[in-house]
Structure formats: structure tokens, C-alpha cells
């Protein structure tokens, strides 16, 4: 008899080889090796099937709980919380919005390259959109569940389901909370009569020139980031806006679509100081007096250019190395106050001062 390990001659019936110490019985055969390989094939096959399915658990938001943290889930619903953008000193960190499917609400966060890819492709969610989104369920340190999305294709926005109802500003402004459906899409037309930049979003007043009725337009933080500030403002003339209805207290507001929320004619600064008030004007001349420091923007400052007072709003333009006697070109809106006519250089518009 030979030792099955070292091949040397050993006595019959021994359990252990006297030469190499290997056990002669109770050994591991090829069948066991094949069994382990088969187990690995099975596990690998299950994982391949999971990857083919995209490995998503379709869930209703109301069924999600903290116990499901780190689960990979797919949910669908209507965007009911305004899309916003996280910024850090290096740029955009991510996009966030809330969806509701009727059973509950869930915050969605899209991070890093995925968020950048959505911005670059201009495929972005708007309030009222129907979306399908897949991601990893996480528990925030602030005490709520959110869905972390790190793959751009994991967010599907059903733009084909956007149906815009044409409503006049008067109709929207006069409707009671029960008359209109929140998050339904509308299209309306008017003139922008005020701009109020907030920390993250911009509020506009859209006025119907015929009836004088007004409605508040909301440009969310994501739109503001994507478009930049100087696209919609006073002096654009008649603009057509599209967005979703949103109740603020008992009043209806319209939140603009994140992309393609308005058609506004380009602002033309063709007026002069003698034009009608609210005209957009171009003023060229010499700075006669200066109050404030133009080099320390975003602080506002004022000056007199060729006899016309000019007020520059905070955040309007870039820091300027400007002094009395310098030649400037000013673009702004002509307004009339108690002291006479003046030019207002507004933030969030194409207005500006060039030395």
C-alpha cells in the first residue's frame, strides 16, 4: 500500500503515513473540490441574475422604514418638493428634491458625477414631474430617510406626462385652494414686475397688464444654478411661463420648470434717459460723484453719470475699480422717484456697469 500523499510504501491499515504524517483515510476528494466550485457557480449565478434585474426592490414610500437602510429600492411618484442644489467651494455637490407617491414623501439626493451629468444633459426634475428613481436608502443624521442616487440613469423623468393647462394670471390669482390641483402643470403669460432674490431661490411677480392681477413665480435653486441669474427679470416684456401650481398658504404660486420654464424676449437696452419710465436704457458718460465702494461688491453703491443718478443694487455686476472722472457705460431700468428720474442697475438681470 502506498501513501496517497507522498507515494511511499506504508503498512496496510494505518491511518497516518509514518513518512510524511499525512492521513491515509478521511481525505478530501475531487468531488469535494467540485462541490465547492459548484457552490461558487451558484452564488455567481444568483448575483448575475440580480444584476440583470438591476437589483431593485420596487417599493411604496409608505412601506419604507429605517430597518431598510442600505437597501437598493426603486420608487416612483410626483416631485412635490422643489429641486435644489448643494454647493461647496469646489462647485456642485449634488441635487436634492422630494417625491410623493400618495403613501408618503421621500427625499431624493443625487450626488457627484451623477448630478453633474444630469445638469450637463439638462435632464432635470421639476416640481410636478412624475419620476421613477432607484437608489440606496439611507438614514440621515438629521433623522429622516432619503434615497441616495449615484447613477444618472437611475432617475427617469416622465416628460411625456407633462400636460400644460393654459390659465390666465387672473384665473390663477383668483382661484381658491380647492379650485385648482396642486402640482398640476400650467402655462400663463404676463410681465415681470418685481424680482426678489432669496438665499436659494428667486421670487418674481408676474402681472397681467390688462387686469392688473399678479401671481408669484418661483425659480427654484436648481434652475437658478443651471440658468445663471441673468435670464429672467424686469424689462423682458411679455413672457410665457410654464411650471407647476403650488399652494403657499391659501394663494397659488407657479414654480417654473427647471429647464424650459419660460420664453422671454431678449432684453434690449435701447432707451435713453428721456424714454418712458420702466424702459431699459443705456447710459454713457463720466462719473461725476460716487457714494459707496464699487470694488467691494456685493455691497450696493450709487453715482451720478452725466447728470443722471444711478443706483447699483447689491450683487449687480462685478467689483469695479471705479472713480470720479472715469468713463462708464451703464445698462439698467429707468425709474421715476420723488427726486426725479434715475437708472436702477438691478441684480439678476442683464443690467450692469462697465468702466
Amino acid at each position, binding site marked *: 500500500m502506498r501513501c496517497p*500523499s507522498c507515494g511511499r510504501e506504508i503498512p496496510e491499515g494505518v491511518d497516518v503515513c509514518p513518512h510524511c504524517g499525512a492521513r491515509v483515510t*478521511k481525505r478530501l476528494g475531487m468531488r469535494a473540490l467540485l462541490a465547492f466550485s459548484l*457552490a461558487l*457557480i451558484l452564488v455567481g449565478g444568483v448575483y448575475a441574475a440580480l*444584476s440583470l434585474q438591476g437589483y431593485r426592490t420596487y417599493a411604496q414610500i409608505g412601506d419604507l422604514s429605517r430597518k431598510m437602510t442600505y437597501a437598493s429600492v426603486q420608487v416612483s411618484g410626483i416631485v412635490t418638493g422643489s429641486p435644489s442644489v448643494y454647493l461647496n467651494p469646489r462647485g456642485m455637490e449634488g441635487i436634492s428634491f422630494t417625491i410623493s407617491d400618495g403613501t408618503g414623501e421621500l427625499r431624493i439626493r443625487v450626488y457627484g458625477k451623477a448630478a453633474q451629468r444630469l445638469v450637463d444633459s439638462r435632464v432635470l426634475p421639476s416640481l410636478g414631474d412624475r419620476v421613477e428613481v432607484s437608489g440606496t436608502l439611507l438614514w440621515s443624521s438629521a433623522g429622516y430617510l432619503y434615497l441616495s442616487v449615484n*447613477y444618472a440613469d437611475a432617475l427617469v423623468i416622465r416628460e411625456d406626462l407633462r400636460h400644460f393647462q393654459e390659465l390666465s394670471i387672473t384665473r390663477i390669482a383668483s382661484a381658491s385652494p380647492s379650485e385648482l390641483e396642486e402640482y398640476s402643470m400650467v402655462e400663463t403669460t404676463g410681465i415681470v414686475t418685481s424680482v426678489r432674490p432669496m438665499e436659494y431661490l428667486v421670487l418674481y411677480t408676474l402681472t397681467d397688464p390688462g387686469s392688473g392681477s399678479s401671481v408669484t413665480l418661483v425659480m427654484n435653486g436648481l434652475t437658478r444654478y443651471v440658468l445663471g441669474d441673468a435670464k429672467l427679470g424686469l424689462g423682458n416684456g411679455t413672457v410665457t411661463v410654464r411650471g407647476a401650481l403650488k399652494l403657499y398658504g391659501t394663494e397659488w404660486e407657479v414654480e417654473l420648470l427647471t429647464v424650459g420654464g419660460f420664453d422671454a424676449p431678449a432684453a434690449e437696452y435701447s432707451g435713453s434717459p428721456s424714454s418712458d419710465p420702466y424702459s431699459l436704457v443705456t447710459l454713457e458718460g463720466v462719473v461725476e460723484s460716487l457714494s459707496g465702494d464699487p470694488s467691494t461688491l456685493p455691497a450696493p453703491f450709487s453715482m451720478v453719470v452725466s447728470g443722471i443718478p444711478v443706483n447699483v443694487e447689491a450683487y449687480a455686476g462685478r467689483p469695479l475699480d471705479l472713480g470720479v472722472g472715469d468713463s462708464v457705460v451703464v445698462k439698467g431700468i429707468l425709474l421715476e422717484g420723488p427726486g426725479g428720474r434715475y437708472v436702477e442697475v438691478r441684480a439678476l438681470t442683464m443690467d450692469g456697469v462697465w468702466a
Partner: protein
Amino acid sequence: MMDLNFVLGTYLFALIGTVAGSLISSLPGLHVYNVIGFALLFYIPMAERFPVHPFMMTAFLVGMLVGYGFVFTVPTVYLQAPDDTLVFNLMPGQRYLTEGRGHEAVVLTSLGALLGILALVVLAPLVMPYLKLLSDLLNPHLHWIIGMVILYILLSEFPKDFGRRKKISGRLIEGWSTIAAGYLTFALSSVLGIILFTKTLIEPSRAFQNLMPALVGLFAAPNVILNLISRREVPRQVIQRDFDADHEDLFNGTLSGVLGGGFSAFIPAVTAGIGGLLAGHATAQWGDRSFMISMGASRVVYYVGAVTLFFMPLIHVRRGLLAQNIALFYAPETHAQFYLFLSAIAFSAIVAFFMTILISRFLARRVSARSYRIVSAFTFAAILGIVFGMAGFVGLAVFAVAAMIGIIPVIYFSRRSNALAVILVPIWLNMSGLMDKVVQLLGLR
């Protein structure tokens, strides 16, 4: 979304990578850095000529890594030229080889690797939710954890026997020579590591291979040199049909290997060998069989586990050279990709396991057919050729220095783990913020 063609394409690339990695890993004197170097050599022309999906390229690279993880056991056992992760396998491997059981040693180590991969792919999705937490908990403490590993290596030289000489002074010298040799190895390896981490000895175009000559010199060369000098001969090798291990060996070895490999994959600078040794002590495991199984498991869990961490959604820890290189051209994003990645690993592991058996059978028949000195001479020439090809003349110089350090524990029978200081000490110094002071103290800046 994945489709069947994508999955099959991934398997195909994993298969090509595994076969290529397995064949390359049959060469002695290799290190994982070389395998990745070869992989990148493949990748660059392929990416230019055939625009392949980066995930499939990743499958190719991981296939190579898995191939290396399995097949490098073969030159370690037959040619006695291990890398830093298999250095502890050398002693039992050598014993098995001299008993004509080299093939059995290879199969047991590879079986450990197969079970290690099985454990890795099963456990990875289960432990994923806790790894981020663990990573956040451990990151501020890594410097002292590595410090403890260093302390463990230093203390593991004790206890030693007294010398057997007649005079007290002779016994004292003999008793302490092994320990002193161990600490000398540790000190010299540390200095070598600090120099390599702070100075660009090898020209920048070969900078990818900066550490490789030292690692090959420290771990692969010493035994080959010793075999050349000592005229060792190897008996005829037996190709076993069944193997000396039972389920207890398999369980103990795999458990200890997975723990050690997982620890090494998670903690920078700690390689699989020392991780496996630590886990072996922690699980009170003993015996050559389960030790070899544990080393096989530890090694693959260390290499493949590090890349798996990178593929885990939301964790993306870039641990290990391959993960860092993959991150240059690909960022995994979804759970589906993670599961396909695990599936490709499982597939590669099976291919690599059977390739290891085939290559081992091939070598077992040839290694004893001629003088082992000739085999060792061929091995040494192959090592020199690889080091020169990868790192040039300066690389050969670094290799020579490292080999001289690496031969100290072989001559004095001290622990080879002391040579791991070449990686551990510089990284520990960097993490604890002491590197600058030490560099100034050594006059390197």
C-alpha cells in the same frame, strides 16, 4: 441597465484576464505590482484600438488579479520564490515539497483561496451596510493600529531557546543572535522602505515599480539563493487524487484566512501574510494544513477584497493598487454593477482554481526531473530578468540590497515577517506624522 450580452461580455473579459493573469503568475519573482503593470500594458493599446466598456476592462483586470491570487502559489511552493503575502507559506510549502507533496500544498492553498472567494462573495453584500461605519470608526485610529501590528511583529521573535554552547557567554550570544538578526532585518527593511517612499530611486517612467525590486529582493530571492548554495534536491512529486485535509481544517483555515485577509484589505500597509498570521493567533489555529488553507484564503480576500470595497455602492474605499488604478478610468455606481462584479469574481476564481491545479501538475512532473540547482538557477535568472525589465539597473541595485537584507532571517532562522517593515514602517510614520522628522534624522532631506 444590464443586459445578457453585457453580462456575458463581462464574463468573457474576466476569463481572458484570469487566463492571462494565471499564465503570467506562473513566473517566479513576480509581485502583484507587476501583474497590474502587465494588465495596464494590455489595457492601454486595447482601449485605443477597441473602445471597450470600462466595466469589462475592470473585469479583465480583476480576472488578472484573481489569477495571480491563485496561481502564484505554484512558484511559491515549487521554486520557493514567494511574495510578501505568501512568505509564511514558505516553510510548510518547503516541507511538503521535500516530501514529494508539492502538488498537495498547492491544492490546499488554492482550495483556501477558493473558499476565501466563496466567503467573500457571500459575505460582501451582507457586511456592506456596516463597513462604512467601520471605516469611519477606524480611520482616525489607523496609525496606532498599524503601530500595534509592528509591535506584534517585533514581539513575535520571543520566546527563543537558550543557546547550547558550554560557556555562558556563548549561550547568551547564540540565544540572542536570532532575535538580534530579526531586529536587524526589521531595522534595515524599515530604512530601505523609508528611502523608497521618500526618494525617487527608480526613474519616474518606471515609478510604478518603485517598491517591486525591494519586495522581490526581500521575499522571493533569499530562498532561491539558499537553494542554489545548499545543493538541495527535490524528490519525485506525487500527483494526488485526494488530499490530506478534513472539514475542520477547511473551516478553521478559511475562517482565519477570511478574518486575516479582511483585516489586511481594510487596514492600509498590513498585507495578507501578517493579517493571516494575526488571525491565526486570534483563532488559535494550528497545523500545516489549516495554515496553508488560511494563507490561500487570506491572500485572495486581501487582494480581491480591497477591490470589492471599491465596488461597494456608497463606500468606494480605494484600498490597494488595483482599486486606485481602476478609479482612474471607472467609477462604479450601482448595486447591479456590484453584483455583476461579484459574479465575475466567482467565475474567475473557479477558472483560476482549475488553472492552478493544471499548472501545478505540469510543474510537479518537471521540477524533480532535473537538478533542483538548475531549477533554482533558472528561477534566479527569471527573477533578475523581471526586475531588470521592470526597473532597470537601479532596480537591480535595490533588489541586491533587499536580497542581502532578506537573507539575514534565512541564515539566522529569525522571522521573515520582520522584512514587512519595508511597507509597514514608512506608512505608519506617514500616518502618525513622524515621517518628516525621521527623514531629517536619517539625513535624507
